[in-house]
């Protein structure tokens, strides 16, 4: 499903409480969320439970989804990430409060941002498939296996500096690929 379609479905849920749109989002994301949650350490039944909780949050907060801030898949990823931290650590993940008067606000977004977030999301996905397996697997460990840079280093018997530079290589490759796509 393209990022554009996901975005339209999510906006329809937010604006019109559209149940068919929600079911379509569920069909696409629930099985992927399950893969994410199982790999990150939630057992099968618990994974289904967290998928359910995350999709309920998607329904309830869809109104607050802002396509100019993030793509639908990114927005859903952050919900699932927070839900599994709440569920596995039993504590809330520390986050900024966008309403806090002490928060230093963003500078206004540059008008010439090369791509819309949904276009960028598709581009990132395409470029991901071009990464060498060694690099792609590092990124999956970082995001899907709850492994911080230092944990990856300890488990793979590599110096932290090596892990950092390999991840940096992968990110550089992503960046270059994205630049090529946006020309």
């Amino acid at each position, binding site marked *: 499903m393209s990022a554009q379609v996901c975005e339209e479905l999510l906006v329809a849920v937010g604006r019109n409480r559209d149940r068919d749109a929600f079911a379509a989002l569920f069909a696409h994301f629930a099985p992927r969320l399950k893969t994410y949650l199982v790999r990150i350490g939630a057992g099968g039944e618990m994974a289904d439970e967290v998928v359910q909780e995350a999709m309920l949050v998607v329904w309830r907060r869809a109104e607050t989804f802002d396509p100019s801030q993030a793509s639908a*898949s990114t*927005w859903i990823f952050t919900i699932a990430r927070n839900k599994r931290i709440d569920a596995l650590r039993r504590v809330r993940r520390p986050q900024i*409060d966008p309403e806090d*008067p002490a*928060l230093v606000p963003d500078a206004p977004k540059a008008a010439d941002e090369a791509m819309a977030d949904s276009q960028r999301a598709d581009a990132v996905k395409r470029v991901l498939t071009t990464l060498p397996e060694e690099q792609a697997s590092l990124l999956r460990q970082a995001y899907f296996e709850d492994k*911080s840079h230092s944990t990856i280093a300890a488990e793979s018997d590599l110096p932290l500096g090596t892990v950092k530079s390999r991840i940096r290589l992968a990110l550089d490759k992503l960046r270059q690929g994205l630049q090529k796509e946006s020309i």
Partner: protein
Amino acid sequence: MQHHLNDEYLMDYAAGSASQPLSLLVATHLALCPECRAKVAAYEALGGALLDSAAPSAVAPDLLQSVLDRLDEPTAPESRIRRQPQVFDETTRRLIPEPLRSHLGASLDALAWSSIGRGVHQVELDIGGAEGFKTRFYRIRGGCGVPQHTHDGSELTLVLGGSFSDGIGRFGRGDVSIADGDVVHQPIADPGDDCYCLAITDGPLKLTGPVGRFLNIFMRY
């Protein structure tokens, strides 16, 4: 602001693998730093792309139906519960952004400070979910400093008010100092306002100066 968080900390935070104390420090820096916020958004976008390209796994066949059945459940007004009555004075609200403010739980003047040397006070914060980490909030009077020390692990310090200097540089509001195990450093608050900072360590401090070595025997840092 001159001293930002390294990318690996921002990525760990975006991926959700950063420990609770580290997440608290990162998020509090993010409240003061739009630049690092933008980087975290980019790392979250990478998470979104990885999720979107993950191989699907079968969920329980009735899972969609049970979610649909729950869509109309009334929800607890989360945001109202979270917004407690104002327990913080004006200075605290101005100086300490969320999420740190809620974790302190009281105004700066009302915290349970304990003195750990001339002009230096600390409170230890219980963040939860964080074995091996120490999370401390310091108030250092201008001109005073934490005794010279090294660490077994690394120490990250985020400045909220005032500023301090250590042999490496000068750190003001929003700046993060990152000291690895082998760095010997002695942060000294610059003259002027009290310096408030949040510090997390993932190993016990080892005091190294002549006074420090002496203090080390008495203080469980």
